[in-house]
Every structure is written in C-alpha cells, then in structure tokens.
C-alpha cells in the first residue's frame, strides 16, 4: 500500500474526531469523505445530515453534491430546506458541523465571501451557504482546510462566519450556544483554540511535518503547544477503507 497523502492524513484525522452516534452536518468534499470514513470505522451510528434535508443518510459512495439522489434514498427522513435549517440546525439538534473556507484567522473566524473589498472584490467566492448558522448553532465545529499562508491570514477580508470572534469569551457573550470551532484540521496538522484566549494553537503535526513547516504556512505568528504531538499514521485499515470508498465513488459517478 502506498504511503498516505497529506489529504488522506487530513481526512483520517478528521474522521477520528467524530464520536459514534453524533449528529453530523456534512458538507461536500473532504468533510463528507471524513464523515463517511468514520461511519465505516469506529462510528457506525454516526448520523449524517445534509443541508438538502436528508437526515441519517447512509450513502454507499461519496456524494458529489449535497443533493445526490442516494442521500435521499438511504436517509431515515427527508425534510424540506426550511425545516432542516429551522427545526434541526437552529434548534440545536446538530452535534458536529463541518466547515471549510477560503480564509481563516487566528480566532477561527471564516471568510467564504470575497477576497478584496466587498463592493469591488478581487475574487468573488461562493458566499455563506449554511456556514454562519452551522458555526453558530452546532454543538461544535470542525474546520478542514489546506494549510497555506494566503488562507491562514492575519486579517480576514470579510467575516462570513464568526468562529471565536475577537477571542476570549466573545462568543458566549454574543449569545452563541454551541462551542464553536474546536479543531482546525489541515493537511499539515491540527490547531485548537486556547481554552481562555481562544486563539488557535498548533497541537498536532502530521507525520513528516515540523512545527516550523506549519508556522511557515500560517499568515499570522502561530503559537505552538508545549507538547505538540505527532498525528498517528493512518492505519492500514483506515487507509484501505478510505481508498476503497474513493475508488467506488469514482466508478459510480463516472461509470
């Protein structure tokens, strides 16, 4: 078996973060791969909820969109979009939300709206989608992003999705019920908010990655935990299941 790629390590690390039975609000791409991997490993009772309204989906391959037919066909319940946002997400019935972003700052606030000024952006990004409410109302949020200096920035161009706002207890003062981003899982390592300042701290590096590598890929002066750990290599089982899932996905979608 060939060694794990960085995206694979990132996906496995995210999958390991999910406890069995959790209700997980899943986006497309890496989060969906991580959640579906976890469901095949240690978390067979993970409840996958997609914003298209499918609750308890059990897809056999990875969906290419949050509205793939298989998500509906294998769900415990399919509800309307107003309901998924009001009765499920806003009502606090999601344990874990997954988010990605174009930019993140040291307090895990996220930008998916624009690079440059809002009125005349240099790059127009897709926008908010469900992210602000996912971050506000989920029990906790896992962020998955590739670690690059232009993505891990000193100052967001636009705060689409508040994470820990300006840090400290700002989040709970603003009335958010969930704990907000608890882990930022990247292709280099894992950042976690400091318990008091809520500034993101490097707590894990992936195999073969040094803390300096991660600092170099971060646009702010990244703090590193005293006891930074190395992520355990993906096991043969983890990697095997992930690769099998991806292979079957490719066959299904292109076949």
């Amino acid at each position, binding site marked *: 078996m060939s060694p794990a790629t960085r995206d694979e390590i990132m996906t496995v690390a995210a999958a390991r973060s999910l406890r069995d039975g959790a209700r997980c609000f899943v986006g*497309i*791409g890496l989060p969906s791969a991580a959640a579906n991997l976890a469901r095949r490993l240690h978390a067979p009772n993970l409840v996958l909820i997609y*914003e*298209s*309204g*499918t609750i308890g989906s059990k897809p056999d391959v990875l969906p*290419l*969109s*949050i*509205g*793939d*037919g298989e*998500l*509906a*066909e294998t769900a415990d319940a*399919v509800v*309307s*979009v*107003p309901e998924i*946002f*009001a009765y499920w*997400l*806003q009502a606090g019935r999601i344990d874990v939300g997954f988010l990605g972003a174009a930019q993140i700052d040291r307090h895990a*606030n996220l930008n998916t*709206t624009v690079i440059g000024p*809002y009125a005349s*952006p*240099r*790059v*127009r990004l*897709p*926008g*908010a*989608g*469900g*992210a*602000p*409410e996912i*971050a*506000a*109302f989920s029990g906790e949020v896992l962020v998955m992003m590739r670690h690059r200096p232009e993505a891990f920035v000193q100052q967001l161009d*636009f*705060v*689409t*999705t*508040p994470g820990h*706002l300006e840090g400290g207890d*700002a989040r709970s003062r*603003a*009335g*958010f019920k969930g704990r907000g981003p608890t882990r930022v899982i990247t292709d280099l390592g894992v950042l976690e908010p400091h318990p008091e300042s809520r500034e993101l701290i490097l707590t894990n590096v992936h195999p073969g990655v040094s803390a300096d590598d991660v600092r170099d890929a971060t646009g702010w002066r990244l703090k590193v935990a005293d006891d930074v750990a190395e992520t355990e290599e993906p096991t043969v089982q983890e990697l095997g299941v992930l690769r099998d899932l991806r292979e079957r996905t490719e066959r299904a*979608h*292109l076949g």
Partner: protein
Amino acid sequence: MAKIIPLSEAVGDLIGDGSAVAMEGFTHLIPHAAGHEIIRQGKRDLILYRMTPDVIYDQLIGAGAVAKLVFSWGGNPGVGSLHRLRDAVENGWPRPLEIVEHTHAAMAAAYVAGASDLPFGVIRGVHGSDLHEHSKAVRWIESPFDGERVLAVVAHRPDVTVIHAQRADGDGNVQLWGIVGIQKEAALAANSLIVTVEEIVDRFDAVPGEMVLPHHVVTAICHAPGGAHPSYAQGYTQRDNGFYTAWDAISRDRNRFEEWITHHVRGTTSIAEVLDSIANAGDGE
C-alpha cells in the same frame, strides 16, 4: 388554473423584461430547460432569486439576462467557481450585477414568509457576521416578550417561480419527490408558477416522500422531459456529473462560453435539442 402549454409560451407569457423570477431546486430538479428558454427569448434585466445559483444561473448571467441576483451560495457544486457569476461581479461583464446575499437559513425563511404572505421571516441570525451588515434585506429586532434579539428577513415575493417536477396529471396537479428542497415555499411565494415536468400522466401513483402541488396553485405546466439536465429528476434521470466538471472549462473563457450558448442554447428550441447538440459536439461531456 393550471394550463398545459409549451414552455416557450409559458416563458413568453409570464416572464417579462425586469421580472423577478425564482428558479429553485436544491441540487435536484433544477429547471434548466426553462432557463434556456429565457435565454432564447432574450429576456433582460431580470431579478433572479435562488439559494444555490449554479450552472443555469451562470448561463443566464453570462448571457446578459440578469440585473440582480438574490442568493446564498453561488458555486458549481463539487467543482468550484461559477465563472460567469464571478466575471459579472468582479468585472461587470457582460453587464454589472447587483447582488443581495443571505445565508441559506435566511433565504429559506424569506421564502417561507413569502409563501405565508408575511412581510418578513424570523431567524436567530448570526451575531458578528459581516453578511448581515451588508444587507438591507435583514434587520435585528427584539422579542416583545423577553427582549432577545433575532433577525428579521424581508419576504421573497417573486413575480414568477419556475420549478421542474417529475409528473403532472391531467388536472394540472404536480407531483415531485426525493429531495424537495425549497420548492414548495418558492412555488407558493410567487404570483405565478411555471412547472416543467418529465411526464404527464392521467393519475398519480402515490410515491413515498411525494409532495403534491394542487392544480389551483399552478399557472402553467410544460412537458420537458430531461429538463433538469445536468441536474436530475429522481426516478427519471441521473445527475450528469461530467457536465458539471466540463462546465468549469466552458465558463472560464468568455468566448468559449458565448460559442457554447450560441450553438447549444440559442441554436436550439428545446431541452431535447440541447442534449442532442451537446452530445454531437462532444461539448460538455
């Protein structure tokens, strides 16, 4: 109330220059055939609503039909950017595009309010999001009971909503199933409703998960099998994932986009012809 008429007639009669139009379908059942017909008829200055503007809105925007877009997530799902949407916002090409943007939760609440004939919907809102600061369509209000702040979202009331569904019956009732998304609320929020369908049947068989829109809320039904392509109609067609991927390259380049629209949309008269045209050209597969 519901008339079964050709799509060209429905679009011609019900959508005018400057109309406010919602074309909904949450990944599933996106009304592409109707979007093409709007382009063919050269409609201008449209105000378009859609939670997830994707390829069909990229086409409408690139074709110059759209003055304003109300949306919550504008990307090519699973692929990347909508290059025509980006070109319009970043460079004003082919014309400037005004945008009003929301979160999904706010868009959904705005449709619910429209369907309920309320002036606004209420959600908790997200304190600290710049999004709420840039929008005139939302306002913080206080609960009259405990003073808690919540977010009011102005109702969506489009002139016309367009959706694609699996079936209509002879009376003009419409049946859809699978992921039903925001279709009912969008349908009921509008003054007129155009529904393109895969099939017209005498009577429906009941289907688990079905949603039925009674004939008296449907303005026009248009037979357009395959009309969701490259999106899909559960039980009838498959999502054409290859097309979504191919669209990235087509839409990235203004000239290639214009050739594509000229040849495959303006040069055809129906979704069936569009699909043939694409297949023959090997363009978009």
